[in-house]
């Protein structure tokens, strides 16, 4: 499959490369020429990256087709080995004081799940045990046993346990205690504090609301005024910052947008400005940058690419056939609509009902009016959101992004990195793979149909597991957990 962008990529390096061995050892390119004089730090840094990336693309472009195909393959076995070794390497140190182990767990476990690779039972057990010991007696998860609970580690732990799946893993989560912890972290302003005495920012809001949603404990109290806080973080640029006044940033933009969707307030954002900011974050290197005039980084494949994927599903401009806007009243009435599949599909195509509150899984509810707490409603915001279909292709350039991930971030020996010249790590492995799956599924017309061959750059075997786009958990695992926690809340399957 030709990659037109590689051909049009502009770089100042030599146009002819020596022939290289097929799939052979990574070559060491000669040092790039120095940047032109009279340039600023930003320009020089950008120049350097463009040189490196350009070198990779031009080398790729002159490879014969078979070698190109190989270069575009997801090196599953090597990634799995890198990840599994990492997970095993964590195990002995599960007793030490490093605060980021739940995060590393999540990055590795999620990556393996994206690659469709199960984890061996013994390792799984030790992870569940470890994470259980990270639970604070009064709620939430800390970085390690005995450490104070923290929203970020709670998010990582919960997502890890959901990804592992199974009743042992899921029942190890003390939902009531987590709920208490979330309520303690909730601030009068509407935002959340990361931990006792910690910062209040958009990431804290996201980790709290995402956890609440997946555990089916999201209620009015937790959701109250979160929207106000996040709104105050949308900047003049259009993107979202960590705190009011700070710079628009990809990580916080994903967090803010996902949170607004989860609490059904996405339409309060200036979506056209947001879209305009996000799409311009994809640069000539084909990957995404985190902020204006900053450098490309593989992890933004998820933060920015994922934000685009969310935006695509929002149909933000009220383009409903009847010209009606998406008022809450019209949304509620469709909650009680019949739930057979064909109607659900019709609903997906009817933009008026394309709101987070439409519940295509009505068959799982007791019939009749909503008697549950708000958590049932807001849980639905998440459950069905992944089923919404993007219209007319992806907002961002999906094949270009896949190209960056596979050729510039992927290391053939396993793992992914920020950009050429940087080292691999589990964080980038997680978010490059997450970005890759977002790309692969970004143009799916129907939630249940798999991507078409031309939506997947490289061989079709590159296809990863789909994720839930709001929580970044493999979809089938999310669905299993969702079932589990609904039942745990007392809702009966019909």
């Amino acid at each position, binding site marked *: 499959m030709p990659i*037109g*962008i590689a051909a*049009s990529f502009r770089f100042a390096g030599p146009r002819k490369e020596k022939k290289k061995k097929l799939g052979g050892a990574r070559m060491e390119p000669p040092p790039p020429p120095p940047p032109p004089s009279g340039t*600023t*730090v*930003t*320009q020089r840094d950008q120049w350097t990256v463009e040189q490196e990336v350009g070198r990779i693309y031009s080398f790729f472009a002159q490879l014969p087709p078979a070698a190109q195909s190989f270069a575009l393959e997801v090196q599953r076995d090597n990634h799995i080995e890198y990840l599994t070794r990492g997970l095993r390497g964590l195990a002995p140190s599960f007793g030490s004081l490093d605060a980021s182990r739940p995060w590393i767990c999540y990055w590795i476990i999620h990556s393996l799940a994206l690659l469709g690779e199960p984890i061996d039972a013994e390792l799984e057990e030790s992870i569940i045990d470890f994470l259980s010991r990270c639970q604070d007696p009064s709620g939430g998860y800390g970085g390690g046993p005995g450490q104070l609970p923290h929203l970020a580690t709670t998010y990582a732990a919960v997502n890890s346990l959901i990804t592992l799946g199974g009743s042992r893993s899921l029942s190890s989560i003390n939902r009531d205690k987590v709920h208490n912890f979330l309520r303690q972290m909730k601030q009068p302003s509407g935002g959340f504090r990361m931990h006792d005495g910690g910062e209040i920012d958009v990431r804290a809001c996201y980790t709290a609301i995402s956890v609440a949603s997946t555990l089916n404990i999201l209620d009015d109290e937790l959701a109250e005024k979160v929207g106000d806080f996040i709104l105050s973080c949308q*900047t*003049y*640029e*259009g993107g979202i910052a*960590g*705190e009011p*006044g*700070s*710079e*628009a*940033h990809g990580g916080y933009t994903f967090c803010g947008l996902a949170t607004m969707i989860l609490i059904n307030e996405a339409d309060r954002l200036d979506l056209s400005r947001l*879209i*305009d*900011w996000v*799409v*311009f974050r*994809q*640069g*000539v290197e*084909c990957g995404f940058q985190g*902020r*204006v*005039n*900053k450098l490309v980084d593989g992890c933004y494949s998820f933060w920015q690419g994922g934000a685009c994927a969310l935006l695509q599903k929002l149909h933000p*401009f009220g*383009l409903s056939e009847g*010209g009606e806007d998406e008022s809450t009243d019209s949304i509620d009435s469709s909650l009680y609509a019949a739930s057979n599949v064909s109607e659900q599909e019709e609903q997906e195509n009817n933009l008026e009902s394309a709101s987070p509150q439409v519940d295509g899984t009505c068959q799982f509810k007791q019939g009749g009016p909503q008697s549950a707490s708000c958590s049932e409603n807001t849980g639905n915001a998440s459950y069905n959101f992944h089923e919404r279909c993007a219209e*007319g*292709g*992806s*907002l*961002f*350039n999906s094949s*270009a992004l896949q190209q960056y991930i596979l050729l510039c971030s992927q290391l053939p020996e396993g793992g992914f990195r920020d950009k050429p010249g940087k080292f691999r790590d589990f964080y980038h492995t997680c978010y490059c793979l997450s970005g890759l799956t977002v790309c692969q599924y970004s143009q799916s017309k129907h939630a249940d149909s798999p991507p078409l061959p031309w939506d997947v750059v490289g061989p079709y075997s590159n296809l990863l597991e789909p994720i839930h786009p709001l929580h970044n958990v493999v979809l089938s695992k999310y669905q299993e957990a969702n079932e589990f926690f609904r039942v745990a809340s007392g809702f009966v399957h019909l």
Partner: protein
Amino acid sequence: MKGEENRHHRRWVAEKLGPDAASRELEFTRKIFCLDAKNYHAWSHRQWVLQALGGWEDELDYCAQLLEEDVFNNSAWNQRYFVITKSPFLGGLRAMRDSEVDYAIEAIDANLENESPWRYLRGLNNDENEAWLNDSRVHSACLRVLKAKRNFKFALSTLLDLLGLSFKPNQEIKDAITSLRTSDSGEAGSDSDLANSICSILAREDPMRANYWTWRSSKLSQAAEV
């Protein structure tokens, strides 16, 4: 010093940190910016210091200095916006808008491809569209860029936004846009044709965002039908 902070908290913090706290904290972040002028947490901290402890007096100058060193430093542009909107010494966005439009346009003219001042310029209008629509400096800046026939995607994007607000471009601007078209899809008659022209030029000139420009175009026809 005026501010939104809980006075009790501010007094508590100032007492804890001592009377030199503001200048010490500002100096601390300044040192970080010498090494990494875009350090996100340092900028957050600096903003907190300004709001909690003061020190606004020199901040606009500091932004100007950073932009002098690197006009592409988006964190400095963001700080500039923060200062002009929040500094108790400057009178707020409306008071500052006029001079800031000049400042942004000067930066644009120096580097057409620099996204920061373009976004800053758009941010200055803050949804008060009248001033934005009638500011001939903005129109002239866009025109200058179009005539240069290179690095014009931000100029076209800005014009597209203006057209969405019922901007009535003069003939010179219309001609400049038309001259950038390659395909002959007829004369750009109505403004909606002009907007569509812009979208198709951009889909060609900015292929990374081809889908986005196509989608913008479809939004235009939807709006027209209403």
